[in-house]
């Protein structure tokens, strides 16, 4: 497989120019998590209005996979209901577990993450932001280090 499979332009684009990389003022939901295995860190901020995630931002540092995944995630779930966000989290986990074949309609740019599946140790990097979002929605706040083995 060519390099492009994993480092598609999409991933590099989101890594170099992350979307919504900011603290969201007045965010009701926030959660931080890191992966001590590689030092990836993600904090997610969610501002809800009328049952929708109207503004989603993140801060963090780490490899291109974790940071681009976070960037794409903020775009993908902005405007979604909690239920829709939950479904998206499930679909991403399914894709990264190799159980769900992604289709462009449902996944959009997130399809780019599929190339990571062939690097098992890096699946964690791709899933980390989604774990953080899920815990933010569950109101768990800090969950430092829990992404470790």
């Amino acid at each position, binding site marked *: 497989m*060519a*390099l492009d499979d*994993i*480092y598609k332009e999409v991933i*590099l684009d989101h*890594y*170099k120019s992350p979307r919504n990389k900011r603290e969201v003022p007045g965010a009701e939901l926030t959660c931080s998590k890191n992966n*001590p*295995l*590689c*030092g*990836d860190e993600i904090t997610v901020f969610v501002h809800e209005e009328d049952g929708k995630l109207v503004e989603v931002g993140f801060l963090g*540092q*780490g*490899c*291109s*996979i974790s940071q681009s995944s976070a960037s794409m995630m903020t775009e993908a779930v902005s405007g979604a209901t909690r239920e829709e966000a939950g479904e998206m989290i499930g679909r991403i986990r399914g894709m990264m577990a190799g159980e769900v074949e992604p289709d462009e309609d449902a996944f959009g740019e997130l399809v780019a993450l599929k190339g990571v599946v062939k*690097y098992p140790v*890096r699946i964690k*990097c791709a899933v980390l932001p989604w774990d953080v979002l899920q815990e933010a929605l569950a109101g768990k706040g800090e969950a430092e280090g829990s992404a470790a083995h």
Partner: protein
Amino acid sequence: MAVTEQRSAGLDVARLRADFPILERTVNGRPLVYLDSAATSQKPRQVIDAEADFYANHNANAHRGLYQLAEEATELYEAARGDLARFIGAPAPETIVFTRGTTESTNLVAHAWARRFLTEGDEILLTDMEHHSNIVPWQLAARDTGATLHYIPLTDDGLLDLSDLGSLLTERTKLLAVTGMSNSLGTLPPLRQLTEAAHAIGALVLVDGAQLVPHVPVDVVALDVDFLTISGHKMLGPTASGGLYGKAEHLEAMDAFLGGGHMIEEVFHDHSTWNAVPYKFEAGTMNIAQEVGLGAAIDYLEALGMDAVRAHEEEITAYAIGRLTEAGARVFGPTDTSIRGGAVSFWYRDVHPHDLATILNEEGVAIRAGHHCNQLVMRRFGVPATARASFYVYNTNDEVDALVEALAKAGDMFDG
């Protein structure tokens, strides 16, 4: 990549590479460039054959049966103990306990020595460049005994900062546990100086030999260490081979470690008596075939000559540090190869080490990326992780060139 005629200080690298079957394979259509020997070394045919020969022709439990096969197995197993003792200059084979490597060896001392002899207020001195396997066993022992842990800090160059050693070694210090060679910085601490200072205040010294023993000629008597831990799989041997050297008086005084068969002399309802050293520490069926394989690895290294092994490592490490620095990488640890080994950690053009490792893999180049079980070092130098290339007898300058070329590709991808 063609291996050029590399003769480095007595090692005929091109020729010895032919002994390593795995070096013939490709990864992603490219010749494998294996630069992760600090994690585990590759194995020469001689070691693979020795282990297979044991199973094919001599397999029986050691120190058990009264028939010929059992005697052969015992003989081969004990011959490997003699090989390991000779390899590190140990005074007698009985000072070598077989274990499955440095981690188990350190835990053995933390249980059978530290938990037996340490009490509330005693101190264990470690360093900020220790592998987690030379930290965590002491944390557990300290928790159980009331001892406290103290650390020798590092200089910006990745050396031990010994300016305050006098106050770190106190009359309460019972043990100094220090690496023989850092697995992330490559640093070779001044073991002789440390041993003298520790002994002067009555503390024992354990040296973590995981990286030291495979790469540098070692004489435990000259170094006067009390314990040396040895990892077989990092020195061309099979996984789960290895051992612990201990001065006879300590091994005698220590408690048993794991309880079980063969480590006892007599078993009664309420107590048991222990077998002689080293068998007192070898409970149950050991990694017999693996230790026999380790014996073959030692034969192999001795035939190369450890002085030549070390000279080759200094040469390729100097070349790698030069090329990496030229390419704009920040290399961690000392640059003077007389005080460092061939584990070279670096940070390259702000590309995350995990991204580097993945992209390098596409070029067939295997490096390590992460914290290398050295989170204290990562914190000290303010990086979440590093990339690390590490070298052994089979590595060539051409492979260093392949590394640098692959890095440039990765860098361009992220900068471009």
